[in-house]
């Protein structure tokens, strides 16, 4: 397929797109009917409070009721209770229910927020996350009593490694940015182990803000490489900034313009040539599931945003999960402890590399308390001796001391990689998010994941072509899962900015796209429809954009746009005042 093929010849077919998708059915993702009640502010919980009112009910325990004075030394004892709201359960429920009615969500309608992959979050994953066997397990439960959790984590790690084409992964990082920093520390440890002190990490000018922020926290300097006129890394510029002091490069592929970095092999070769490593920011992995894998592109380190690609809900801003997968040469550096199948344990044996227990060669590097196999409660060194000596675990394991399912030996345990960079989370990562992701992966399977990528890319390209007459398309070539449009012409012509378009779209019953990112596009509108929106919804979204643009050029258009939104629970919010007169708590109210 030539570049021109996608869309150019079809420009005249636009009517067909409309016809196909407007008459057939109503759009499922348009939320203009949402009954957002009233236009008054919701009081805070503190204003609903009335002294002496309460909701709490606690178990009858029968424990003697000593007064605080007998339990806590006077100098440490609080004299006044912490003042919290005092409300009835009925008022509490009403308050937070009303707040929920003032909140847009994926469940309400389409959420084409670029770079965030706001796809539908299957409800079955909620059921899984609420299973008592998962939700009620303490993180310090001995491995022998948490075999289900360890199995789950190992299965997820294996699936993620297959999806990314990597050797092993840590599931500890709690979000993408945490994964980035973990990856950069892996990079640092890798170079340090080779006696090299490298100073710089290269990132494209289109990179997400977490990339440079993580680079700094990783102890590196940022070198920015420009994008070329096609929206990809400028190869010539890259070669210029490459050198022996470069620790690595961080890339998003498809990049934040939604474009596949076609020169990725050349980039990988050039970076590896100078001894640098390639870091893959997996925010956009959704586009390439089952199509192409970061490992096959030459990446050494990959983070995934499970809250994007694998549909774990975004929680109003979190939690997410940001597992980091690495190539073989970095496995021994991974954070620990890692869940593993035990050699000859009751579980299925893994063919994946990196999960054999390794000796702890560098005691200083490991976190305290992490130098043992908690599956059988002996030191890792003992386990290694056993493995080395070829002694079967049946002889080596203490018999009958640990209860577990079939009365067999534990199949899974924890292990700290040989030269681990250490722990990056209080416990094992955002475990319930990980359980949701595994569920999503299993429901989809290899075939379904590939279909996810296909539909995501299909939807984005359809919108790109459909909206070509409406907005600027700064890089008008086949995109992947998202498309970056721009309101630069609209602003010049009608005085209506990307931000105004975003606010107008709220009035149209849709969440806004990401605006002003990536930074290299003037008046950027970054649209990621995701695969779970129907063509009818896309068409309705396109028509909403068309109405917005048409209205902008009508008399008074700029004023109307600046006054948007008018149908939402509050109208445009005074951000300048929020920063000038900081009120971060109820107590700070003037």
């Amino acid at each position, binding site marked *: 397929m030539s570049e021109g093929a996608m869309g150019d010849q079809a420009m005249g077919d636009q009517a067909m797109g409309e016809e196909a998708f407007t008459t057939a059915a109503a759009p499922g993702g348009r939320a203009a009917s949402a009954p957002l009640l009233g236009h008054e502010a919701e009081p805070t919980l503190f204003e609903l409070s009335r002294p002496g009112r309460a909701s709490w009910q606690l178990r009858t325990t029968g424990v003697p009721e000593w007064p605080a004075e007998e339990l806590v030394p006077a100098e440490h004892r609080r004299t006044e209770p912490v003042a919290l709201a005092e409300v009835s359960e009925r008022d509490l429920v009403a308050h937070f229910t009303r707040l929920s009615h003032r909140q847009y969500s994926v469940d309400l309608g389409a959420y084409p927020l670029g770079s965030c992959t706001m796809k539908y979050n299957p409800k079955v994953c909620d059921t899984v996350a609420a299973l008592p066997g998962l939700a009620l397990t*303490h993180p310090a*439960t001995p491995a022998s009593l948490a075999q289900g959790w360890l199995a789950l984590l190992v299965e997820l790690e294996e699936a993620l490694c297959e999806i990314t084409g990597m050797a092993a992964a840590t599931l500890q990082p709690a979000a993408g940015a945490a994964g980035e920093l973990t990856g950069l*520390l892996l990079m640092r440890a890798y170079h340090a182990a080779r006696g090299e002190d490298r100073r710089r990490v290269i990132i494209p000018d289109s990179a997400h803000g977490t990339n*440079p922020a993580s680079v700094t926290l990783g102890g590196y300097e940022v070198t920015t490489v420009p994008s070329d006129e096609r929206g990809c890394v400028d190869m010539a510029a890259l070669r210029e900034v490459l050198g022996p002091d470069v620790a690595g490069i961080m890339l998003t592929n498809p990049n934040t313009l939604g474009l596949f970095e076609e020169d990725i*092999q050349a980039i990988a070769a050039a970076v590896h040539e100078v001894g640098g490593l390639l870091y893959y920011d997996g925010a956009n992995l959704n586009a390439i599931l089952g199509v192409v894998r970061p490992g096959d592109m030459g990446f050494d380190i990959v983070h995934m945003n499970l809250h994007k690609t694998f549909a774990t809900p975004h929680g109003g*801003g979190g939690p997410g999960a940001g597992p980091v997968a690495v190539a073989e040469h970095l496995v021994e550096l991974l954070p620990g402890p890692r869940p593993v199948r035990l050699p000859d344990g009751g579980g299925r044996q893994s063919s994946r590399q990196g999960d054999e227990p390794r000796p702890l060669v560098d005691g200083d590097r490991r976190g305290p308390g992490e130098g043992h196999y908690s599956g059988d409660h002996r030191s890792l060194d003992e386990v290694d001796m056993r493995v080395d000596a070829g002694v079967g675990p049946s002889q080596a394991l203490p018999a009958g001391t640990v*209860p577990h399912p079939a009365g067999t030996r534990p199949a899974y345990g924890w292990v700290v990689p040989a030269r681990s960079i250490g722990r990056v989370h209080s416990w094992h990562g955002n475990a319930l998010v990980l359980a949701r992701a595994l569920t999503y992966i299993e429901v989809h399977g290899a075939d379904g994941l590939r279909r996810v990528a296909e539909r995501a890319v299909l939807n984005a390209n359809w919108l790109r072509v459909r909206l070509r007459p409406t907005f600027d398309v700064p890089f008008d070539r086949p995109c992947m899962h998202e498309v970056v449009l721009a309101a630069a012409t609209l602003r010049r012509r009608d005085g209506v900015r990307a931000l105004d378009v975003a606010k107008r779209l709220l009035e149209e019953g849709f969440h806004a796209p990401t605006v002003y990112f990536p930074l290299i596009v003037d008046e950027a509108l970054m649209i990621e429809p995701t695969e779970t929106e129907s063509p009818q919804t896309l068409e309705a979204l396109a028509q909403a954009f068309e109405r917005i643009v048409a209205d902008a050029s009508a008399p008074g258009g700029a004023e109307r746009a600046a006054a948007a939104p008018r149908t939402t629970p509050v109208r445009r919010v005074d951000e300048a005042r929020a920063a000038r007169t900081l009120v971060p708590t109820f107590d700070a109210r003037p």
Partner: protein
Amino acid sequence: MADYLPHTDEEVASMLAFLGLSSTDELFATVPEALRLAGGLDLPSGRPEPDVLAHLEDLAAANEGRADRLVCFAGAGAYDHEVPPAVRALAGRSEFVTAYTPYQPEVAQGVLQAVFEFQTMVARLAGLPVANASLYDGASALVEAVNLGAAASGNPTVWVSAGVHPHWRAVLRTFAAGTGHRLVEVPLADGRTAWPDAVGAGGRAPGVLVAGYPNYLGCLEDLAAVRRLADAHGALVVVAADPVAAGLLRSAGDWGADVVVGEGQAFGTALSFGGPYLGLFACTLEQVRRLPGRLVGETVDLEGRRAYVTTLRAREQDIRREKATSNVCTNQTLMAVAAAIQLGWLGTSGLAEVALRCARGTHYLRESLQGSAGVRPLTGSTAVVRELAVRTEVPARTVVERMAGEGFLAGVALSDLVGDGGDGSVPAADAEHGLLVAVTERRTRDEIDRYVAALEKAARR
């Protein structure tokens, strides 16, 4: 079989035609041929929801140690507290669950206001004027606090009490490899930090001091002494405080902390095998421009109505990039919302009651163990609020195994936290035989009595 993709085959064909394409493969024409995955992923094919659910149920069932099967006396930063139906129902509302970061405040007042209320509650617990919208967990909040402290004092030497949770200290060490902070661990003596009177020969004066309150062994630190020491060196004080114990204890802010961090799991989040949890972060107004992560502020809309918005955004990574105060983007908002709901449910009297009940239960357990042959307190005199470290005759891991057979998750073996070799908080011998026991408001007298009886047997050779 249906999946979550709405397109009919006809629609796919029509959309492809609109793009001038004849197959979905052509959508990926920009991916170099040589890189494309031949033969697809080596994963099983998709399965219907009920089948997958059955598999996950099997895995869940294999967790024998879960808190609805074994009576949970384990803590160490993760606690079996009451999460009432009202909190579960509200925090599970899909408007909160399936939204994202409130980039469009006009349609995100729900999350924004809930977070504003959360910030207010956390600030009050900490005794400080500002709290952020959450960080990943207690450990990440501590890392951010140390980053703030070192930046504010201009001195990257950090004295960390060994009474801070061992995993948090481990995370601090991991990230110090990047920031270059010099971490100096200050050991405990009989359960409390033995802060040095002076900077030793060759040592460096601290820019940040970090203490636990109570520390992870449950002991109360002398925070006034920490403040004095900090003032002597121009250092900032970071306190890792237990937010439940704060219901009973003077707030860390009141003791003079510049930054208070904590693990907020106890408020509305189930044990969850360690995550997602909730990093709490509060600080002084003086440091607000160094605050990591999101901050919600109150303001007004165009019509003068009260409204909420994320504010002081110029600190953050998407604007400040490599000069940002932190790299955090996605945080733990849903857990923050759950905590706000839980703290709303507890209210003034409920929080005090929970803290008091924890202290009573802990005290009752301690009293009940008096004079038992195989178990004695690990630390001497210092007061114990919520968590208790004991020394068992046989190694604590053995005790935990034996107690599981008696129906208890007996606690956390200290060697699982600090390693077999011990650390600055406990010597090797105590590490092997140390057991950290937590008593929440959910533990009944009968459970504690049975626990004590079982422990007396299990702890003996």
